[in-house]
C-alpha cells in the first residue's frame, strides 16, 4: 500500500515540522534507552526496585498460571495412570516389599547416626526453610535464565538465599520484591556453584550453559576422575549454599570436566523452598571490598601491629587468611 497521508508532508510547513518533531522524539527515546542500558550494564542492581515493583504487580496472574500448570500435569498423569494401572500395581507391590525392608534398615542407621552424633557432641545442623513458594514465571524469551517465585521480603526472603526443590538445588534469589522475588537459575550463563562428587571429594564448579545443562569444571586438573552417572552435590564453600544439596547428574565427559543434567528440573517443579544463607559471615566477608578500602584497612592494621611491638619487622606479621571468593555476585 502507499504511504499514509500523514507521511507525505509536501510543502505543508506544519506537517514537515510535525514529522521532524516525531523523529526527534523517537531519536531521543532511543538515546535515553542507550543511556539506561549502559547504566544497567555497569550497575546491574540499578533498577532492581522498579523491576521488583512490576513483578509484585503482575505476580497474582503468575500464581494463577502456576496453579493451572500443576493441575494440568495432574490431569495428564491421572489419564496416563489408567492405561497402565494393572502392570503398575504389580510393580508397585514389589517395590513396596523391598522398600519396607529398606525403611527398617534406614531407621536402624538413623538411630546409629544419632548415637554417634551424641558421642561426638555434634549439634544437629538442620536448616529450616525460610519460606515455601511457587515458581510463577521465567524469562522464556531471553538468553538469561531468571525465574520468579511467589515469596518476597514480606516472607523473609533476602537476596542471596538458595532456592531448592525436594529434588535438588534450583538457584538463588537475586532481587526481592514485597511478595515476589527474582531467582537466578543454575542454568544461567552467569551462575556458578561450587560442587563436589557425592561419594568423595572431587571438587568442581557447576556453571550454567544456556541450553538447560550444567558444565562441571574440575578445580584440580589432571586425569579426569568423573564417570557417567556421578551425582554432584553442593560443597558448601563460599558459604552461600549449605553442603550436600543435590545439584546434577553427569551425562557426558569433557576434557576438563563433564556435562551434567540438573537433578531438579525447574519446569517440573511445583513448590520450592527458600533456605537461609548457610554462612552469612563468610558471604559478607567474601564481598570483596574496594581496593582503596582494602589498602586503608591494611595500613591501619600495619600501624597497629607496629604500635603493639615496634621491634618486629612488619613483613613477618601474620595476615588473616581470607577464603577466596568463589561465588561471583552476578546480576543481569
Amino acid at each position, binding site marked *: 500500500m502507499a504511504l499514509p497521508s500523514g507521511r507525505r508532508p509536501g510543502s505543508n510547513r506544519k506537517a514537515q515540522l510535525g514529522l521532524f518533531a516525531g523523529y526527534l522524539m523517537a531519536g531521543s527515546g532511543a538515546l535515553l534507552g542507550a543511556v539506561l542500558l549502559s547504566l544497567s550494564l555497569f550497575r546491574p542492581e540499578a533498577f532492581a526496585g522498579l523491576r521488583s515493583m512490576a513483578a509484585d504487580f503482575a505476580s497474582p496472574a503468575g500464581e494463577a498460571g502456576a496453579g493451572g500448570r500443576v493441575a494440568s500435569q495432574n490431569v495428564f498423569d491421572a489419564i496416563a495412570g489408567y492405561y497402565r494401572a494393572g502392570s503398575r500395581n504389580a510393580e508397585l507391590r514389589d517395590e513396596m516389599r523391598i522398600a519396607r525392608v529398606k525403611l527398617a534398615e534406614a531407621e536402624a542407621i538413623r538411630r546409629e547416626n544419632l548415637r554417634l552424633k551424641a558421642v561426638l557432641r555434634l549439634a544437629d545442623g538442620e536448616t529450616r526453610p525460610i519460606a515455601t513458594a511457587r515458581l510463577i514465571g521465567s524469562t522464556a524469551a531471553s*538468553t538469561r535464565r531468571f525465574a520468579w517465585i511467589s515469596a518476597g521480603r514480606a516472607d523473609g526472603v533476602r537476596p542471596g538465599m538458595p532456592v531448592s526443590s525436594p529434588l535438588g538445588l534450583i538457584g538463588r534469589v537475586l532481587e526481592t520484591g514485597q511478595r515476589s522475588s527474582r531467582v537466578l537459575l543454575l542454568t544461567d550463563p552467569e551462575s556458578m556453584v561450587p560442587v563436589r562428587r557425592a561419594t568423595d571429594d572431587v571438587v568442581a564448579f557447576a556453571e550454567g550453559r544456556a541450553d538447560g545443562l550444567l558444565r562441571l569444571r574440575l578445580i584440580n586438573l589432571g586425569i579426569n576422575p568423573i564417570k557417567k552417572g556421578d551425582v554432584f552435590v553442593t560443597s558448601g564453600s563460599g558459604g552461600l549454599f549449605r553442603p550436600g544439596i543435590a545439584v546434577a547428574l553427569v551425562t557426558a565427559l569433557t576434557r576438563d570436566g563433564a556435562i551434567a543434567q540438573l537433578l531438579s528440573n525447574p*519446569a517440573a517443579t511445583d513448590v520450592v523452598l527458600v533456605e537461609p544463607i548457610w554462612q552469612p559471615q563468610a558471604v559478607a566477608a567474601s564481598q570483596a571490598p574496594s581496593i582503596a578500602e582494602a589498602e586503608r584497612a591494611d595500613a591501619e592494621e600495619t600501624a597497629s601491629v607496629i604500635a603493639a611491638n615496634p621491634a618486629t619487622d612488619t613483613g613477618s606479621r601474620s595476615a588473616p587468611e581470607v577464603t577466596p571468593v568463589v561465588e561471583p555476585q552476578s546480576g543481569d
Partner: protein
Amino acid sequence: MSRRAVIDSVVSRVRTDGPSRSINRTQSPIRALGVPWGTIMLASLTPWLPIIAPVPILPPFGFMMLIAWRLGRPNLLPLWAGFPLGLFDDLFSGQPLGSGILLFSLALIAIDLIEIRFPWRSFWLDWLSAGTLLLLYLTATTLFARVPLTDLQVQLVGSQLLFCIVLFPIIARTAALLDRLRLQRVRRID
C-alpha cells in the same frame, strides 16, 4: 479535538463491518486507540506464562506484536511509542533495563525508513523486513545480556530466530484480527 474527530482521524478509511450491523452503532475511542497498546503490553507479559523454560524457546512476543501492528497499521503508533513499550517489556523480559527501550525505538525508526524507501509494500516485503528486524533484535539482546557467543549459544538463538520468522505471519494475522475487534461498532448512539 472532539471525540468524533478523534475517531475519524483513526478510522477514516476503514469500515470493517457491513451496514446492517453498524446502523446506529459507533466505535469506542478507548478501544480504537487502546487495543494496540494493550495487546503489545500483554504480549510483553510472556514471562508470566506458566512455562518455566530451561532454554530460550519462546519468541519475543512483545517485539513481534509491535512490528505486526506497525506494519499493518502505519498511522496508529506514534514514532516515540518505542520508549514506553520498551520500558514495559524490559521490566519483565530479564534483559538489562534499557535494551528494550533502545531496540523498540530503533525498530520503529527503521520501519519508518523502509516505508519511505519502499512506499508500495507487500506481504513478502513485510515478512522480509520483520525477519531482518528479528535477526537484529535477537542478536542485540544476546549481546546486551553479556552472554558469550559460543557455538551452542548461536545454535539456540538461531533456532529461536527460525521459530520467530515462521511465526511472524501468524502474529501479523492476530494483529489484523485484533484490529477488527478494535473497530467493531458496538456502542449505541443516543
